[in-house]
């Protein structure tokens, strides 16, 4: 799997547990123990998910060695939504121009038909 920032964001977001963790962190910082509570998974599993989120830049962690509370970092998410918006814009403009191109083709054909 590619590891450019967008790919890391999208693959980090592809897991429902990780998204649930992010939704929780969007409400405010939390420790690993607090994050593990609502899920039926081990602390180790939660830690693994946090590592993936951290690698994608979607969370940062405090320096306090014992608790290391997690914070939500929205920037990569914004980059992902921006990218989607840009891509939509490109296709919309491309299709606008295809529409014009088809009109010109029809127009030229009709011209040919005329004596």
């Amino acid at each position, binding site marked *: 799997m590619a590891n450019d920032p967008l790919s890391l964001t*999208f693959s980090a977001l592809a897991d429902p547990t990780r998204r649930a963790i992010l939704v929780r962190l*969007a409400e405010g910082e939390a420790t690993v123990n607090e994050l593990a509570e609502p899920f039926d998974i081990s602390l180790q599993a939660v830690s693994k998910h946090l590592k993936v989120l951290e690698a994608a830049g979607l969370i940062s962690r405090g320096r306090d060695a014992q608790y290391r509370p997690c914070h939500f970092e*929205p920037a990569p998410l914004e980059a992902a939504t921006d990218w989607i918006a840009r891509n939509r814009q490109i296709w919309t403009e491309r299709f606008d121009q295809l529409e014009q191109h*088809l009109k010109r083709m029809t127009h030229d054909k009709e011209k040919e038909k005329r004596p």
Partner: protein
Amino acid sequence: MSDAPTELGELTITRIFEARPEVVFECMTTPSHLTHFWGPIGMSTPLEGITVEPRPGGRFETVMVNDETGEEYPTNGVFVEFDPPRTFSFTEADVAGGMTTAIVFNDLGDGRTETVTHQTNVPPIFMSPEAQAGLETSFVKMDAYLATL
């Protein structure tokens, strides 16, 4: 034009064109047509930079050039499906971890064609119905949060 709501990592664009599917399909897969419309506003797509090998596994490459700066944006696609005039799809391995674009050409029966363009850069393994269900509920919440930023 009607657009489906956008999920993260996905894009669907629906358009209706005043031409038959054969014509629209040909325009979208023939270099001499593509050069007229492929680049979005402010970009050109010179004919010499377009490669179309019309078969599954064939190349689908373009180079978009910024009209002002001359900066070049090459795209390197490979056709997955090529089934004229019904559908074609291509993957770009170097975009956001492997983006796939699929375009379906629906014959509206009155000389018009509806195209449905679906792009996804979510790896297929995550596209299972379970993953999709998870995506939807979580992204609704995420979108609500993003709206407050």
